[in-house]
């Protein structure tokens, strides 16, 4: 076999470089690259949380007339997740808190409420303006009094195990709420009835619907899509 001289080697490099690049397209990166990409994603989360995010900055509020004609909704179950007629529902609030509690819809509706018309940003790239009504998450936090250990909030649902983890600052943001009404009407099953998380400062996939549990925790929870590679922070 003839040995490759330097010139041949260069030629090989010139051909192999672009060929490797072309072969790389449409490919997910393999396990090694995947873990590197995941680390970069965590770095971006850190920058997003600590540099690009202000807990005081409010999302633009629109007049109700600016509402979009449709507000696409989705769930991961095969059918719209609903509660049985006789099935009692209450939001369990616990974890690293001094006073864990369980709140029925009536109890939540008696707490201070907020209403705002804001723009929804989906990770896919579309937007939609809608009006949401509910109780600010910070109000519920005041009820249960998170301990100093609490750094994150985990949200669980009855939509086939869908869940999310949030940074505390975003959870306590004045526009983050537990919503029970959409466009002035009670929340319907396609939008997460009876209760969903809503905030204009996160992408749609962070806004857990069909809530069952809210847990303050010291360890960072993952999330249904986040575990598959979506940015964990999802802050916008």
């Amino acid at each position: 076999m003839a040995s490759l001289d330097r010139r041949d080697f260069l030629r090989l490099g010139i051909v192999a470089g672009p060929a490797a690049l072309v072969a790389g397209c449409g490919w997910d990166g393999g396990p090694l690259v995947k873990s590197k990409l995941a680390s970069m994603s965590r770095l971006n989360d850190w920058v997003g949380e600590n540099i690009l995010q202000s807990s005081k900055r409010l999302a633009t509020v629109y007049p109700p007339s600016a509402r979009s004609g449709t507000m696409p909704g989705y769930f991961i179950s095969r059918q719209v997740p609903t509660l049985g007629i006789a099935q009692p529902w209450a939001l369990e609030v616990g974890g690293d808190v001094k006073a864990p509690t369980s709140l029925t819809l009536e109890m939540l509706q008696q707490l201070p409420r907020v209403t705002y018309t804001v723009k929804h940003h989906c990770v896919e790239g579309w937007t939609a303006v809608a009006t949401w009504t509910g109780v600010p998450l910070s109000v519920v936090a005041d009820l249960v009094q998170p301990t100093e250990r609490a750094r994150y909030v985990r949200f669980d649902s009855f939509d086939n195990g869908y869940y999310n983890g949030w940074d505390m600052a975003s959870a306590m943001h004045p526009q983050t709420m537990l919503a029970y009404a959409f466009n002035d009407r009670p929340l319907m099953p396609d939008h997460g009835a009876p209760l969903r998380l809503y905030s204009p400062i996160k992408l749609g996939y962070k806004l857990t619907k069909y809530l069952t549990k809210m847990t303050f925790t010291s360890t960072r929870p993952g999330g249904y899509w986040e575990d598959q590679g979506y940015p964990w922070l999802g802050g916008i």
Partner: protein
Amino acid sequence: MTESPNPRVRRHHGLVRLTHWLNAIVLTGMIASGLQIYGAFRHFGSKEAQLPVPNPFDGYTFPEAVRLGGWLAGGLQWHFALAWPLVFTGLTYLGFLIATGQWRELLFRPSDVKPAIEMQLYYLRLRKEHPPQGKHNALQKGAYTFIMALGAISVLTGFAIYKPVQLSWLTSLFGGFELARYWHFVAVWLFIAFTLVHVGAVLLADRASLPSMITGWYKGKFPSHG
């Protein structure tokens, strides 16, 4: 063929060559992962009300061979990871131009308009002799100023759609989230158009400029240009 009388001259600093090729690779990855992300919503605006902007790729799925990431999450990971080296090489190059004063040879000014027209006439063979020039002719200056501005606009529109609430001032500068996303997409086609002209000019007008971007040494028709 006789030995060329053209002297061998030093043309490109190592930092310029390094950032040039790094940028070529990173930008390819940015565009490929961007086309993957576009596939998740192949329109502009909201779901039911589209922006009244021209988009020949409305509803179009780009072939797998030009996409990077496999699916939306993979595309996003690549895009947000490569954004770092893209910005880093861009700033390094810009810093080099400022530190060495070389930006003067690249910035297109109003006084370059007339020589640019003369140069265009020369390329169209409507003018016989090559107009006098410095390191770069006026058309090249226009192209390089344009590409730097395009790079800056790509990064800024990128941030505008990455953080439309936290950086809302930037997002509104580009006409809001939906339009900023559109300009970010338009930039892709301008980059591709630039690359075609850039590579075409190298191959047709001055082939010796290609090895000079690799080795730093230029040996060709225009040794006086720098």
